[in-house]
């Protein structure tokens, strides 16, 4: 399958979404990203049983933290898809890119010069 997804999406590979930690996501925002989404396996199909369910809870927790600091919870999301659903992967990448575009650049970066 040769599917294209927006080139602004930077993929960070992890062995399982269960590795996703609250701090990991916060660090990404500190480094200046505009949004983060976690792409996990379908619920009920985690190789480690509950990794993706835990990741979802952590994403929810980070939403709360981002609301608190005024970045807005919409900048982080969790999506589920199976390894064979490349189409979905590309679709979620577009969906999230659109959402972040409408939210605009992270306010954390407003004092940093951005490339045009």
């Amino acid at each position: 399958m040769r599917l294209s997804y927006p080139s602004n999406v930077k993929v960070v590979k992890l062995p399982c979404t269960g590795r996703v930690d609250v701090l990991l996501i916060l660090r990404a925002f500190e480094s200046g990203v505009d949004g983060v989404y976690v792409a996990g396996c379908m619920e009920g199909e985690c190789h480690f049983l509950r990794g993706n369910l835990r990741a979802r809870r952590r994403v929810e927790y980070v939403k709360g933290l981002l609301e608190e600091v005024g970045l807005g919870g919409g900048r982080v999301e969790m999506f589920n898809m199976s390894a064979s659903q490349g189409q979905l992967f590309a679709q979620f990448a577009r969906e999230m890119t659109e959402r972040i575009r409408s939210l605009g650049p992270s306010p954390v970066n407003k004092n940093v010069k951005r490339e045009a």
Partner: protein
Amino acid sequence: MIVGNRKDFKEILEKLGSRRRVLVLGCNECVTVCGVGGEREVGVLSAELRLYWKKEGETFEVREHTLERQCDYEYIDQIRGFADEYDVILSMACGAGVQYVAEAYKTKLVLPAVNTTFLGVTIEQGVWSERCQGCGNCILDMTGGICPIARCSKSLLNGPCGGSSGGKCEIDNETDCAWQLIVDRLKESGQMERYEEILPVKDWRTGREGGPRKRVREDLRL
């Protein structure tokens, strides 16, 4: 262990006021285990502060540091070399730790980032529950190992009250009735005769009601 809750970010910001050089100080003991004030939570609160102030375009310095304990002078002393570089120490320890840090750094502003709530146990990963109120005269031998002071909403010594229903306390249907638990446990362990004994009025002077408490063991002193 001592269990607490993180204060709201908004409240922490308000208390910090215009101070921007902050030492976020964690503790490696109880507050680490109950996920409120250990190294990781220090990282989360510090990240929140940095994100917020970056967003506001402010200049700031947030330093993360976690001590083995904040209730022992030897550990608190470890920050002496750099504590002075900060406007404020934001302590994520229990109330005892916050106070001991404040006592050691008399000229510094020391703020609590945690609301200390109870002495309790881990029910499961991420869930904690109250077990003891440090009354200073333990009666668990009389109550099947279940504390009516901490776990009965009315701290009744001879319960249950009329509000006990279906094993739950009248305050809400999530909370077990401590006296139902006590009776069940006494039955299970063949100690029901204990239930016939009326517990006398408790002398609360051994607890907080007797004023601040202090313990001395002469043989341990140097």
